[in-house]
């Protein structure tokens, strides 16, 4: 019995496209051109391309792919090279749903935060990108801006993962997503790209 989420693809991707997609509607006045945007939700999408692999490795990959049962199962994914040498940090207050700003504690005094814009973090396996952050903490606390916004209230004291930020994803569909096929060489197998979205 597979227990979801399972771990990420057993092969390191050679190409990773990760993007934040927002579901929005635009209501535009035909008279003035001014618009009101209806902002509904945001989700990460990832597309992974893999190198040619040996037949033996492809079997392991196929087992991973099939165990996801198409879009039913979920897997954890850690974006490539997303890691900051920051550990032991927790939310210093409640992270409120729909908020783009969170407070994180665990630094000492005005210690350099080591945070950087564009870096990832995750809270309870929800992946976020840092949009704005201070160079150093204030009384041990950093208030940072993230995208996408928090979806559900998260309690104060919850750990914030900077070293290996991880999100939960599901396959977009079960078509040819990640299917294996033989290339000209019988020794190597090519793998179709894998497309996945955040499992909300």
């Amino acid at each position, binding site marked *: 019995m597979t227990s979801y989420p399972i771990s990420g693809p057993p092969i390191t991707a050679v190409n990773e496209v990760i993007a934040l997609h927002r579901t929005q509607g635009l209501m535009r006045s035909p008279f003035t051109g*001014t*618009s*009101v*945007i*209806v*902002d*509904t*939700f945001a989700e990460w999408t990832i597309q992974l391309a893999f190198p040619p692999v040996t037949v033996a490795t492809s079997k392991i990959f196929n087992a991973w792919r099939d165990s996801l049962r198409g879009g039913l199962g979920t897997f954890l994914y850690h974006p490539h090279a997303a890691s900051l040498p920051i550990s032991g940090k927790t939310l210093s*207050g*409640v992270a*409120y*749903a*729909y*908020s*783009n*700003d*969170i*407070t994180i504690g665990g630094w000492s005094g005005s210690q350099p935060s080591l945070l950087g814009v564009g870096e990832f973090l995750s809270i309870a396996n929800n992946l976020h990108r840092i949009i704005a952050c201070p160079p150093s903490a204030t009384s041990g606390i950093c*208030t940072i801006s993230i995208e996408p*916004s*928090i*979806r*559900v*209230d998260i309690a104060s004291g919850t750990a914030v993962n900077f070293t290996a930020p991880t999100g939960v994803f599901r396959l977009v569909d079960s078509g040819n997503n990640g299917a294996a096929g033989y290339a000209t060489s019988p020794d190597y197998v090519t793998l179709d790209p894998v497309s996945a979205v955040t499992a*909300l």
Partner: protein
Amino acid sequence: MRPGLSGDWTTALASQGITTAIMAVFQFASGDVAIWTGAHPIQVTGSGDQLLDGVTFDPIVNGLMIGIGDNTFSFTGSEALTLTLAIPQTPTPAMLNSSISATEYQSRLAVLWRCLMVTPAGATTPAIWTFSRVRAGSMDELTIKNDGVQHTFEMTIEAHAAMVTAATNSSYLDQPKFDATDTSQAFAVSIANNPTAPAPAPVIANYNSGYGNYAF
């Protein structure tokens, strides 16, 4: 300003970016079900609406709202509004009961609100929403669909016609309810019952002129 739009709404609209949701309460026989299309469970306080305050609305547990029909009405009447819920892996008691007996839902109240986030959440404050009723009506027709791709629970909500109340039995005697200074009907019952007080006007003289009786 359009009727029903508060200052909060117009301010939010003026910001040219809005976050909206639809909220619904279904008063099933087996209990109230509260659903909304926001991302997280929310407990409403301070709205002044007794169907909202203290109620926790959940986006998932009671069924996932996946379709909201057109809320159309005019002076000639209103169309039924259809709400579509995705039936969860374990259907809720209300869904199960509704599929067996119409008494679970038929002619029972359902209310919908339009919600708008008027103050975005901050680092230390939760988001503030405003709520506006857009329909109150009776649940009427249930359709449970399973076409191999979707398994849905579709409920139609009749509005105005279904909400017309019984006759008010109002009469002219209710006139002071509409105009407190109008006492024109105050003695109507007394007069009809021919009381001694106030006394009828005294008859002073009676002439038989051939055209009938005249009292002066």
